[in-house]
């Protein structure tokens, strides 16, 4: 139980510090809103258009394709740890797994999934 006590102590302290800081800055901080301060991005550049406009989500496809290889690597970690025990069979299994992912990759490539336009 003792380790939980320290974890919860740390959590309480963390929450407390954040709460106190937020409270102090709202009470003590000066407040003078002006036009430049209220723009969505305080970077000095005037916004060109509404942020609500439509834009192509092509990157979403790429992000989805990325997941395949993400999972591949995640899967490889436990495999690498236990490879000593799995021996040749484990190696062959991983080769098959990567070959299947390779087919998916060839498919994506051939279908034009990686082309930007």
């Amino acid at each position, binding site marked *: 139980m003792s380790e939980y006590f320290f974890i919860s102590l740390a959590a309480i302290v963390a929450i407390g510090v954040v709460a106190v800081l937020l409270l102090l800055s709202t009470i003590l901080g000066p407040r003078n809103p002006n036009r430049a301060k209220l723009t969505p991005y305080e970077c000095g550049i005037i916004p060109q258009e509404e942020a609500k406009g439509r834009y192509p989500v092509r990157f979403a496809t790429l992000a989805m394709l990325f997941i395949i290889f993400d999972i591949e690597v995640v899967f490889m970690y436990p495999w690498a740890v*236990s490879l000593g*025990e*799995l021996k040749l*069979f484990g190696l062959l299994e991983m080769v098959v797994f990567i070959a*299947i992912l390779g*087919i998916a990759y*060839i*498919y994506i490539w*051939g*279908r034009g999934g990686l082309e930007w336009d």
Partner: protein
Amino acid sequence: MEHIPSPTVDLVSLAPVLVLSVFAMMVLLVDLYVKRDKTLVIFISLVGLLMTAISAFAKFDLPVHSFNDSYVVDELSVFFIMIFTLSSALAILLSIDYNKREGIRMGEYYSLILLCTVGMILLASSTDMIMIFLGIEIVSICLYVLAGIRRSDPKSNEAALKYFLLGAFATGFLLYGMTLVYGATGTTKLGLIAELIREEQIASKPLMLMGIVLLIIGFGFKVASVPFHMWAPDVYHGAPTPVTAFMAVGPKAAAFAAFFRVFAEAMPVLSPSWESLLCIVAVLSMFIGNVGAIMQTNIKRLLAYSSVSHVGYILIAVIAKNSLGSSSLVFYMLAYAFMIFGAFGIVILIGRKENEMLEIADYSGLAYKHPLMAISMSVFLLSLGGMPPLAGFVAKFYIFSAAIKEGFVTLVVLAVLNSVISFYYYLKVIVYMYMKEPEGEFQISLAPMTVFVVVIAMVGTAGLGIFPDPILYFTQH
């Protein structure tokens, strides 16, 4: 460090899954390089299905358990693999001319049907709830895409979206049910669950009962039983017609196989707690399916509601839970495959490019113009209703006798009553075909492959009805 038990790998018993997966990937790759002509892709798919059916017989001395008791090859799974490969092959044959007509040019279509079949085989052969879940997911994901494959058609999009949202929701229920059963028993293996729940202490846990209810909801959705059937008419209507026929047979059979394994094989001890619930679901499915079908004017929706009512009949086989139940279940699914593919084959033949002719009124006077087609449609519909001497009658007869043997007389009486109700709407279509004047022109081009499927279905429907003995012998031994 705790030692991880390495699974008992038995690739030979996994042969059907492996063969079909390899062929599905081959289809995917070949389609990349042979863009125009789909003949090669279709040929590879059909060869793959044939090889899968053959490889299902790789094991003797059934049942063979492997992969730490999570995969089994037994008579039930071998027979179901036959049904799956048959229905997928028929779906692909039906698609050839249909896809040309409707402009579906994606080779992924065939690959998805094969992958869906892989999922169905896993589903019918798993004895572990995790594997059942994986199988259901493989099947469902392929079906979501197949339902929406006509991307330019809003109906098809609607079907895919509805199916996806509701399907994902139902999968949640299924998984939650599995979690609760795991919580109560401490294992996901069906064999172990069957032993553990013999103890009163585990069997009477509220967790277990909650899990069973949630499992029924999950499976009930996947097989489209009332009250989880609302998606079926819309999805069946919007999906491309060969996909509709495929959905009504293959994946449904697979879900029933898992249903049977979980309830009738693993939990017969607990039957007092799930039997009455399934009886209610079965009776509701029959009544609401049949009454719903009466009100339809669209042939695809009519067949969708009729399939809901058939789910009610098939559930009786699960409730009967004896060996006669399992053999009548596979016989029913086989007979149902022939009837459904035949009926949808005719629906595809009657349609043309701009007008799919899906209204029942479109069938007016078909018998005067195309008597052979009207006769075959009538045979399929009467068989669906359960008219002797067709396949549908024998199938129903065996399910009902399995239930009578277990003493479910009231249930069977209600089911027979429902068969009578169902004749009303099957006969309605026949009345339109034979007793009404033709309204418009029929422009029917007899696409050879579709006709071939209808002929196979006809032989199957009549053959199983007149000579059911050989197949029944197989299902019982």
